[in-house]
């Protein structure tokens, strides 16, 4: 190699080395740079309605000690699951799986009810995923509540929350215009089915359909309790579900929403399927011995036009015994 002018080969060598170093440091910088230093300014996304047109204002209640049968009976009154879910639909099911405890403690959705709903959707040819962002460790919650096994044996999968699934979404008009939520599962889904439990709640009286959507949120959601009634009414605006199956197979009548002792649980043996969130929550509140108009968030949601407290105003109300 001469000390003077580099020849062509050496020129190419040096240039490729320099390019390699530049590209390498670029890749390293892109990989390791701290994206959280500044707020991303990410724009909140609107979540579409999952409701099937023509199914508004319906509520069907089925009583019976065979809870899977009760689910079927209640859905039958609404025209069957096929009215809500079609083949190849992607169905996201939001069960209440907020706490790491066995299902007979009444803090989580019943595996029987959850499994039956999954089975019906799968039977219609839909792709089903069940999710929740629990208070306790997600895997522990899904496994120990028995929901993991029920979902998997019914032919669907559990979608455990992870940071990559969250994004900023538009929520409601009262208190939280936007918040962090399970954005990816929500945009993945064509249909959304809620399976809330019937529980008392230390702050807002009852935890039912609309409070169940709290489990779709992430971020610093422990701040939401400072205006819990407004927030729950906002959640009613946030999610317009395809269907809600209120799981009253057993009722958590005391020490809600966690429970903690079987003595806090009473047998309920009732399942309510419907599309009107206010009507569903009014019915659930009555199951727990409350007057719906005494529950602040139900009143607020009704004022927002999210549904009917008075079942007489519903398009369809049925009550059957499943046997």
């Amino acid at each position, binding site marked *: 190699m001469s000390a003077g002018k580099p020849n062509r080969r050496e020129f190419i060598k040096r240039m490729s080395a320099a390019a390699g170093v530049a590209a390498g440091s670029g890749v390293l910088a892109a990989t390791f740079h701290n994206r959280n230093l500044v707020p991303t300014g990410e724009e909140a996304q609107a979540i579409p309605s999952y409701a099937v047109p023509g199914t508004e204002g319906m509520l069907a209640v089925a009583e019976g000690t065979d809870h899977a049968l009760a689910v079927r009976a209640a859905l039958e009154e609404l025209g069957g699951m096929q009215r809500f879910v079609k083949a190849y639909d992607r169905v996201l099911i939001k069960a209440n799986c907020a*706490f*790491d*405890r*066995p299902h007979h403690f009444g803090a989580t959705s019943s595996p029987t009810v959850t499994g039956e709903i999954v089975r019906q959707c799968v039977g219609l040819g839909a792709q089903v995923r069940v999710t929740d962002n629990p*208070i*306790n*460790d997600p*895997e*522990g919650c899904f*496994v*120990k509540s028995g929901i993991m096994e029920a979902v998997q044996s019914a032919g669907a999968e559990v979608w455990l929350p992870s940071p990559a699934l969250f994004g900023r979404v538009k929520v409601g008009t009262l208190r939280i215009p936007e918040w962090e939520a399970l954005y990816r599962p929500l945009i993945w889904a064509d249909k959304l089915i809620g399976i809330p439990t019937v529980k008392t*709640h*230390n*702050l807002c009286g009852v935890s039912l359909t609309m409070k169940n959507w709290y489990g779709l949120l992430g971020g*610093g959601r*422990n*701040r939401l*309790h*400072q205006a*819990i009634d407004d927030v729950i009414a906002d959640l009613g605006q946030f999610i317009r579900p395809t269907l809600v199956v209120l799981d009253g197979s057993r009722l958590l009548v*005391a*020490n809600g*929403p*966690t*429970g*903690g*002792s079987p*003595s*806090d649980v009473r047998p309920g043996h009732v399942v309510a399927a419907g599309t009107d969130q206010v009507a569903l929550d009014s019915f659930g509140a009555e199951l727990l011995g409350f007057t719906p108009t005494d529950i602040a968030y139900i009143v607020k949601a009704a004022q927002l036009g999210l549904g009917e407290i008075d079942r007489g105003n519903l398009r369809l109300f049925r009550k059957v015994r499943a046997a």
Partner: protein
Amino acid sequence: MRALRRFYQVFFLALFIAAFALTAQGRLKGYPVTVFLDSSALNAVGTLLSARSIAYTMWIGLLILALTPFLGRFFCGWICPLGTLFHLASSLLRPRKMAARIRQNLHSPTQLAKYLILIALLTAAAFGFMQVGLFDPIALLTRTATALASPGMRAGWLLIGVFAVLLLLNAWRPRFWCRYVCPLGALLGATSKLMPGGIVRNQETCTNCGLCNRDCIGACSPDTCTRMPECFVCWNCIEDCPEKALSWKWLPERQQVDMQTGLSRRAFLGAATGGVATAAALHTQAVEGYPARIRPPGALAEPDFLDRCLKCGECMKVCPTGVLRPAMSEAGVSGLWTPVMDMERGYCEYNCTLCGQVCPSGAIQRLTIEEKIERPVKTGTAFVDRSRCLPWSFDRNCLVCEEVCPVSPKAIHTDTVAVEIDGKQTVLNPPRVNPEHCIGCGICQHECPVNDLAAIRITAAGESRAPGGSFFLR
């Protein structure tokens, strides 16, 4: 023999990795994941000296100790997963030149150091200052693996750094740790003094070529007179000798093998005195005065806990919420690297007793969920910091703490206070704690929206493991 030994080494290393990977919620399923910690004779002997009793699973370590007088340090050469890792590092880092390679494997008098460490550790343990786990090779490996598997673990980089240095030291002396430091190796070596056989050299056929030292793992001088306490029974020297001058001999004559560890009475007494002096100077056994020393559920009373804890980190590995972390100053000098709960990182899951399932020494007792809930096991008490609490100080309702409280009836309940805020009548519900129901799980502190210093915090006061531990009159 080489191939067979390598097979066993890789097999046991894979077994260790499998057991470590199984140490997690949902995968545990009753597998004996601590089998390697149980097989360390050092842990068994150390716990016997400090606690005067051992966990029944440690019979494996005692069995290995009992076999060592017959088989030599087969644990070091054939089983120990840490040894295997260092062995791999040594192979990768060894010099190319044969002369340098042989020189690295010559016996060094400094190999005595491990016996001094062993004696100091065991005498200190006998006097209640139990630090055996800090030097036990299996505990060291488990601890480091836990730090690697849990990013962001407190002082995890310290462990990884120490381990990296130990790996690199293999370039200077192959299996540096095993030859110079490892107290388990020293214990097994001291036991192999009793061996009824040894590797002997035929002085007639030996040409003093030095090739027997080429791959000698233990640096036990087969070229002159094999020191059996240092020998890893790897058989490399016998295989490498071109003249077949080395062989195993039962009941060799006194001058044919060296059965001495080389430890003089003076050195023994010096190390023992050092152990006692360290114990006297550093042992902290204060039962009270450590508010952040919040032990996992099922932990024994503090003195008994410190006598047994091996600081292996298994409990921190398995904890599903990550609440367990190693103590730095929270538990005094004696409690360095013992598990304490940090409620900023997690909380104690009500429906979980995994830490007790994996504790190899019984420092954390195995509890059933029913025992934990019904006794109840109380790890501490929640204290409301009224100056930071929203309903108490900031004219707002909140009550996340009450919502997440897992016990029934809830340990957090509320006052009803009517106040006038900006001319408007409002009802506030400030939280209070019922000490009879609070179990100190810390989920209230973890979920409290007041970030950086929660408005409700747990301290160890009132923990049920301490006899008469409650500060309340019952």
